[in-house]
């Protein structure tokens, strides 16, 4: 039976994890993500799952990756400084292709920064924080119901593509409470990773022979003994020092994501159909953007919003189309301008792209974006 509740964003993430069939959480306390750990410490054992608070952030992701190898769906959650510590093993998960959902509830940084204040300064860290070249999937919820839905979605993508998926939240969404209607969890299909078939001795944990480039993954302890390593490896998982192995493995890691962008990349459009001026905003900032669009429309500015829900990989197709449609794009974010760089690169001169940035412990307010839209209209010459 579904239920309607007032719920906090962080709690909705915990509920989403349980609904998706997650059975393991490893982590370390850090504001403003701690409620996720607290909720799961209570929830997981009731379904036979395991919660463990580890000695540090690195161990928090390490223990979860170990559990994932046994076939469990796993989660770790943190905020900026802890996210930095986890980066080493995010690279491991990407290379060894171990599914995991990593939540980062962003706060003001760098360093300890403002632990309880909202920011969106980890957008580039989520993309490029770990070492080496790698693909990554990053989802950004803008509401409490979406915290639930995108957590389930994160598991679907993580299991389907055998890859770490980052749920990049911010303090606004993590800590606010609003109405959420939770479906009955047994009505939610549980994301499952592809299981190997055929004789165990022929199992190749890293063979891209399958059409979608994602090899099936055997669970430890169930008869297929395979090797997991952070070294460049062959199809069986054994170290291979050749340049050919490096090229082939990295090509496949990128291709398995890039060949499925239509499945992975999700955006939302709000009043964009006839818009001349577009806001691009994600996460907590998008909440002000909806309101600003309504205010602008009421004042005769044909405004709309493109909200990237998958912020990595980049919604290139949608952004290019937007650049061809509108007269001006304003990217709003709670940092000093990160996502705007990618939007600008992608729009590539089709229309002007400007930044509305703010990082002073407070959410960007609708009136600020309204003023930015009005200014953009004036500059364009009153269309």
């Amino acid at each position: 039976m579904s239920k309607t509740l007032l719920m906090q964003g962080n709690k909705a993430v915990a509920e989403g994890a349980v609904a998706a069939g997650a059975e393991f959480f490893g982590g370390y306390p850090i504001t403003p993500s701690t409620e996720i750990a607290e909720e799961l410490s209570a929830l997981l054992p009731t379904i036979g799952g395991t919660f463990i608070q580890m000695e540090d952030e690195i161990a928090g992701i390490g223990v979860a990756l170990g559990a994932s190898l046994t076939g469990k769906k796993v989660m770790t959650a943190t905020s900026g400084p802890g996210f930095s510590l986890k980066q080493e093993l995010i690279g491991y998960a990407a290379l060894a292709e171990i599914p995991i959902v990593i939540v980062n509830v962003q706060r003001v940084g760098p360093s300890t920064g403002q632990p309880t204040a909202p920011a969106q300064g980890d957008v580039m860290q989520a993309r490029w924080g770990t070492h080496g070249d790698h693909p990554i999937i990053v989802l950004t919820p803008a509401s409490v119901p979406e915290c639930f839905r995108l957590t389930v979605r994160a598991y679907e993508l993580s299991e389907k593509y055998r890859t770490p998926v980052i749920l990049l939240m911010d303090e606004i969404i993590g800590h606010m409470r609003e109405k959420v209607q939770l479906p009955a969890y047994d009505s939610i299909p549980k994301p499952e990773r592809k299981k190997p078939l055929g004789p165990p001795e022929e199992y190749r944990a890293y063979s891209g022979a399958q059409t979608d480039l994602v090899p099936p993954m055997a669970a430890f302890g169930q008869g297929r003994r395979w090797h997991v390593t952070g070294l460049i490896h062959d199809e069986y998982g054994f170290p291979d020092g050749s340049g050919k192995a490096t090229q082939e493995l990295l090509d496949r890691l990128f291709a398995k994501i890039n060949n499925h962008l239509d499945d992975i990349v999700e955006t939302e459009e709000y009043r964009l159909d006839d818009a001349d001026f577009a806001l691009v905003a994600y996460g907590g900032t998008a909440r002000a953007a909806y309101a600003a669009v309504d205010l602008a429309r009421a004042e005769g500015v044909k405004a709309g919003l493109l909200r990237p829900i998958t912020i990595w990989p980049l919604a290139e197709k949608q952004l290019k189309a937007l650049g061809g449609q509108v007269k001006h794009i304003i990217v709003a974010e709670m940092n000093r301008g990160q996502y705007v760089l990618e939007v600008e690169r992608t729009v590539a001169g089709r229309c002007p792209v400007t930044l509305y940035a703010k990082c002073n412990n407070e959410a960007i307010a609708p009136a600020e974006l309204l003023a930015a839209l009005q200014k953009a209209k004036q500059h364009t010459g009153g269309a």
Partner: protein
Amino acid sequence: MFMEQLIEKYFRPGRLPHIWCPGCANGIITGALVKAIYRTGLDKDNIAVVSGIGCSSRASGYLDFNTVHSAHGRALPFATGIKLAAPQMTVIVITGDGDAAAIGGNHFIHAARRNIDLTVLLYNNNTYGMTGGQYSPLTPTNSKASTAPYGTVDRPFDLAALARGAGATFAARGSAFHAPMLVDLILSGIRHKGFSLVEAVASCPISYGRQNKLGDAPAMLKWQRDHAVPAAAYEKLNDEQKADKFPIGVLHQADAPEYTEEYAKIIARARKEGGH
């Protein structure tokens, strides 16, 4: 069973020869591990071997179990996750002195504190062999290292004492020279329910021995023969006699609640008291 048969049974076909240098004692220690596993009679499917980074940690790739060659220092978190998520599995950690005591030191003491049922086989060659002989937390004071051309100032850990102090319920030390005894110690460690440390004194003639003029591989093994003293006898030595000796054997054994068993009780309680 002869070593040839053990190799056939427990080593992956086509993965040998190993990467270790001629004279390295890691092969002896890995051999002792598979002998101990053979004596447990455990099913290979039910064993996970998790290693970190370094010379010894390459062993996981050669062995025909569920194996993880994890990141530097992180073998214990991975192993903890496997054990918690699949408590029926026997989980063995292969690590080295730098991997476990330096970069993984925090994980080491906390795994010991939890008394989770893992067996840590630590190959102690007193150096970072793979990167060419830098000093580790188990390098004796005044040793030469590629990063200590004037000799080391640092005092080494006594890892067995550290493990005991942190809450481990089994701590033992063996050596490559005393290989049959090492097999017994590893077997006891695996059979012990709780966190077990088996430190295996290894030898690295290339990266450590050469810098410290310790002779060739046989000379380094003979050093082990001449300086290892059974734990009971070691206790009877005076401080002066102890100075250049090290004890081998079971150094600590105790009973304490094991983590996964205790967590199983939490699950039972949470289920009874009702979900959400």
